[in-house]
């Protein structure tokens, strides 16, 4: 099973949509609130070189924004 990380903020609609989607598809994920988690925020900013959320890591692949097609492709669902 792929390791899924979601870098999000508390009021972000697209972050919530992504997390709801993973729950619906029964995909386990770890959520990092970058508004309070300084280490995760730095990780996200360094890796994505941009500051929009969500940033989703599926194993070593990065998805910026809630891109359902790309998520489906990477998770093969």
């Amino acid at each position: 099973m792929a390791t899924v990380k979601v870098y999000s903020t508390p009021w972000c609609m697209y972050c919530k949509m992504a997390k709801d989607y993973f729950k619906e598809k029964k995909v386990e994920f770890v959520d990092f609130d970058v508004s309070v988690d300084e280490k995760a925020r730095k990780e996200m900013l360094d890796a994505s070189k941009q500051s929009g959320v969500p940033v989703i890591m599926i194993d070593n692949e990065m998805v910026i924004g809630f891109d359902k097609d790309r998520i489906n492709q990477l998770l093969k669902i």
Partner: protein
Amino acid sequence: MVYDLIIVGSGAAGLSAGLYAGRYNMKVLIVRGEFGGESATGGVFWNYPGTGPIDGYELMRKMESQAKDVGSELIDGKVLDIKRNGHCFDVVVQDGNKPIEHFGARTIILANGAERRKLGLPLEKELLHKGVHYCVTCDGPVYVDKTIAVIGGGDAAVKGVSLAGQFAKKVYLIVRGTDLRAEPVNIEEMKKLGDKVEIIYGTEVKELVGVEKLEKIILTKTYNGSDELLLDGIFIEIGTLPNVTIAKSLGSNIDDKGYVMVDNSMKTNVDGLFACGDAVNFFGSFKQAITAAAMGAVAATSAYQDYKVHGELCQIHWIPTELEK
């Protein structure tokens, strides 16, 4: 498959229409597009009756659940086109990379809202999410200990300052006019941030400057002796532009401000076509979840009245689409 009603859009207007039409026992399909519309990005709503303070996203999830509970079907996808087919409509939908699908409808409600208004400046697209943002509730909290600006003078801008100001070290609010148009309670909330917030009135953004990311903006007039403002990010909250492409293609009248023209029953000038929410010329510029929901309820009721009278004609005159042949 021919539905009694297809609703385009799933913000407060579309979901409210789905709830009402479902209770009229209509066979309803809601093409979701971007879930929740503007309401889902609105942060906490303090003024939606009956709920108490509620996150806009959660409110939209509740509306979606109510619409589903009364039998309205929801699908993801973008409506590419709607064409008249005899006395009904052929709705062309595509969800991401999936094949294009066609759905028949006896009546249509357009509730596809509006999109964020942009500044229209060079580099705005190139610097998207690299210092230029359109959703302060989403990305504002990423700017911890940074200096940012929110552009706009309405409720979304002022609420955005209050939210982002909990994280940023400095927030400028750049207002084109000479006063704020936000609700007084939201202005009071923003003022609690004290000196952290500076409001620059009568000023617009003239230029965005940055290479890999935004570095500064140039203002249309000087502030504290300079027309430059060094910033880590800006959040553009200057209103919305109504989505009227489909309405136009179906022959719906558009007013001089660019909104779909409807009467007080949410009927357009096109038979069987209704519209509601942020894209229509109703309630003036007062665009709220509650006004959208109200319009959705009225549109569904009008679509139901139309369906009762003309619904049968659709099936009789339906011309099979290419896929059905």
